[in-house]
């Protein structure tokens, strides 16, 4: 049965259309308003508050806590010290992505891992020889994310810590509404924003206090549609969209490596052992990556032109999409080379952007190919160009 989160008494009262979906067994709002665009706009112009409680959370404690996570994730945690956080993916022995999430260095010998999928067994399986204790605190900690340009000013009103000193992907213990929390300057929107881990018993109090400030900071409760739109603009990956966990794939062809997923930059291949390192070294050395993951911009004038063939005005998607869309080398659609994995018309950028999985030879900025677009049950080829990703990367994210 899909369960409510500790915020449910509040979120359900705000959910105008009672639109919910299942997120790791919890009820998660698809959208609160009847038009998700207002939520998207809030994140980019004011701020949005998201219930992110369904994330899995694990406390890793002990003298080897950092060493265990260093073994598990691809990213170099060597510069880590209490107060640092990292976004990272992790792999299986074959160097294929298993999951992604955050590593938060909370204190000496105490780190927290968040993940999309349940990861307790994976942590335990990897912990042989490490002096650690591992605790699944997924239900003992719930979370909200407050994301957008006004998020810091709003949060300042609720906490005792100096948020201007909290840098991007850093975290700190903080009292929020006099309740103990961990605030991390991170999120899934590519904007200025914070994630706050709170105890379930404090959830309603903190939500209420934040919502009381909403009118002053143009804050809105936001659902998964707004989250998906903002994360695509930010070029952030989504499980089951940009990748399938190697633990859940049926066929080797479904797996994907970090080098193929566009997060090769975070793999420290010349460093100490981590799970999958040797396979990734080989992949890099032998150039055996099958894919690259890139940002693509569609030429909307062509979409407009094809609509006009039906004597129709240009129509662009109102929300993001997450299904595989064929990519061809040629306009005649004879050479299928890849797929778009998610895409959207960005109301802010006024661009049609797509995250695409294409062969390495198309990786370069400016490479051109064609994405299939269906208009009135007929397929068309829309010219697409590889552009820089993230599509949207405002200075305020890190400022």
């Amino acid at each position, binding site marked *: 049965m899909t369960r409510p989160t500790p915020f449910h008494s509040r979120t359900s009262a705000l959910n105008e259309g009672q639109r919910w979906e299942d997120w790791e067994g919890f009820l998660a709002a698809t959208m609160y308003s009847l038009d998700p665009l207002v939520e998207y706009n809030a994140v980019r112009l004011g701020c949005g508050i998201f219930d992110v409680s369904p994330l899995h959370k694990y406390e890793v404690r002990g003298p080897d806590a950092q060493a265990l996570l260093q073994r598990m994730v691809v990213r170099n945690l060597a510069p880590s010290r209490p107060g640092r956080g990292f976004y990272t993916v992790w792999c299986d022995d074959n160097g294929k992505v298993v999951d992604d999430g955050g590593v938060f260095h909370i204190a000496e010998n105490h780190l927290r891992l968040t993940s999309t999928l349940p990861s307790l067994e994976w942590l335990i*399986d*990897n912990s*042989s020889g490490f002096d650690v204790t591992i605790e699944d605190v997924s239900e003992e900690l719930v979370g909200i994310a407050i994301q957008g340009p006004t998020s810091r000013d709003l949060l300042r009103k609720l906490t005792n810590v100096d948020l201007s000193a909290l840098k991007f992907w850093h975290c700190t213990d903080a009292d929020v509404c006099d309740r103990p929390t961990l605030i991390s300057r991170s999120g899934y929107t590519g904007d200025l924003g914070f994630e706050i881990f709170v105890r379930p018993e404090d959830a309603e109090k903190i939500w209420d206090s934040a919502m009381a400030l909403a009118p002053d900071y143009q804050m809105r409760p936001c659902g998964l549609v707004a989250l998906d739109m903002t994360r695509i603009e930010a070029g952030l990956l989504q499980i089951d969209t940009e990748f399938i966990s190697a633990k859940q794939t049926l066929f080797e062809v479904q797996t994907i490596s970090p080098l193929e997923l566009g997060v090769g930059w975070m793999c420290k291949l010349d460093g100490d*052992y981590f*799970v999958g390192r040797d396979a990734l070294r080989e992949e890099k050395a032998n150039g055996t990556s099958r894919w690259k993951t890139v940002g693509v911009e569609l030429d909307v004038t062509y979409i407009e032109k094809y609509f006009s063939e039906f004597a129709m005005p240009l129509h662009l998607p109102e929300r993001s999409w997450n299904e595989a869309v064929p990519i061809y080398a040629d306009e005649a659609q004879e050479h299928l080379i890849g797929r778009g994995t998610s895409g959207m018309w960005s109301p802010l950028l006024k661009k049609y952007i797509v995250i695409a999985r294409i062969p390495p030879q198309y990786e370069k900025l400016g490479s051109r190919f064609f994405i299939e677009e269906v208009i009135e049950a007929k397929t068309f080829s829309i010219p697409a160009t590889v552009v820089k990703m993230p599509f949207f990367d405002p200075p305020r994210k890190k400022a």
Partner: protein
Amino acid sequence: MGNYDAIIIGAGHNGLVTAGYLARAGRKVLVLERRGLVGGAAVTEEIFPGFKVSSVADGVGYLSPTVRRDFKLDSHVETIDSDMIAFCPQPDGSQLTIHRETAKTVQEIARFSKADADAYPEFIELMQALAGVVGALGHMTPMDLPEVTFGDLRGAVRVLGPGRKLGRKRISELLRILPMPAADILNEYFESGAVKGAIGANSSLGVSFGPQESGTAYTMLNSWALSGNGLFRSAGVVKGGMGALCDAIASAARGFGAEIRTDAAVASISVEDGRAMGVILESGEELIANTVVSNADPRTTFMRLLDPRTLGTKLLQHVANIKYQGSGLRIHLALSALPQFTSLSTASGDDASARLGAPIQIAPSLDYIERAYDCSKFGRFSDSPFLDISIPSILDPSAAPAGQHLMSITAKYGPYELREGNWDTQKKAFADVVLNTLAEYAPDIRNLIQQRHVLSMPDLESIYGLPEGNPNHGEMILNQFFHMRPIPGHARYRTHIDGLYLCGAGCHPGGGVTGVPGHNAAREILKDSKQ
């Protein structure tokens, strides 16, 4: 300190066998043993002054004839066979003895069931035929699924050789029987509890569960294949205890040029760039070798001698999944005289002592064994334990001071982890239960005990390096058999680390003092070094 072609970790019998074969092929070999004596689990120790106790392993007949011949063991070790394979006293004061000779056994069985007596010759003929295939498999190097090579296929054809002789009907019978519970196949042939208990006990002696468990037909057949006498178990003793056998293997290995160092515990295997470079002793001494061969069990090898922090997740998962779960305590008793079994009260002295020289099985029915297992399944030791007893001093008077006797008992079942208490506090209580059980068949036993010594599973683990007290380096069960022993991808005695091999009972074909894993490992090591 010079460098070696091969360093072997652990002077258990398999390590010594590998060492001997490698030395015989001209390799410079060093065997390192943690304890002060060689033999591993096959040792003779004077636990009681004047008594030669085979502390852990007994059962001599299992040693591979190939090893016996290559190491010329017959001229250096005296083994004394028993004409009887099992003496099985019954709760009602009767007894069933299984003889080597089928005709004699048929007579014995007829006292319990005419139908069973008729079925027995046919049953053992079938089992011998099927065991022949299992035995032939033992000498093969398992294939590495799914990457089967032409070499593997040639090997498979060799296995099919004995298999083909079986004929179609029996091959399908083999495939039907292997994964079955031993109880089911025995029930197909026999009706008497005593007969089924006598034969079926061996399906459970080496594993942690009872004869109703799927796959115990395989364990029964395996024991049958190894017994060397065409029956379900071996019976006999090594003069001087099992240690005498390992001493002879060690002497032969030394004769081939191998060096053996005792009191030399290995702390870790050195690995550089995916290649084994040698070992580091607990004393800090570093030794260099082209090849390192671990006779330690796989958990010890991968999780302790190697650094698990540098191993792949899949490997760690597979190693963590190896079932050890030892379940048999060893209890040794110094006796002032032979016990009087109620069922032998009318037998002549010679007849009684001949029967007691055979393995004594307290397993009067399959249900009895299963119920004994039920207790351990729920974290308690058996309240009516299944016992496998030997009195080696009958066949080998040198095992005990004149007039006295040595009794060694494998007592089942005890779980490695007790639900309540621990073995330090509970082993005496279990030993008392064992003696009470035994007293039901031999009432004077308590009056004869001069000294007793109990080895619980944690004792077997700490003293003999047997994780969870399992003498087989991992359960001998169907999912830990052949290409899955010790783990998939590591069943060819090689590991993922170049130059690191496994040669112990954790490898195919598994436990028992057979020497076969050690023999097969040496064959593969030599094959690799020729390439």
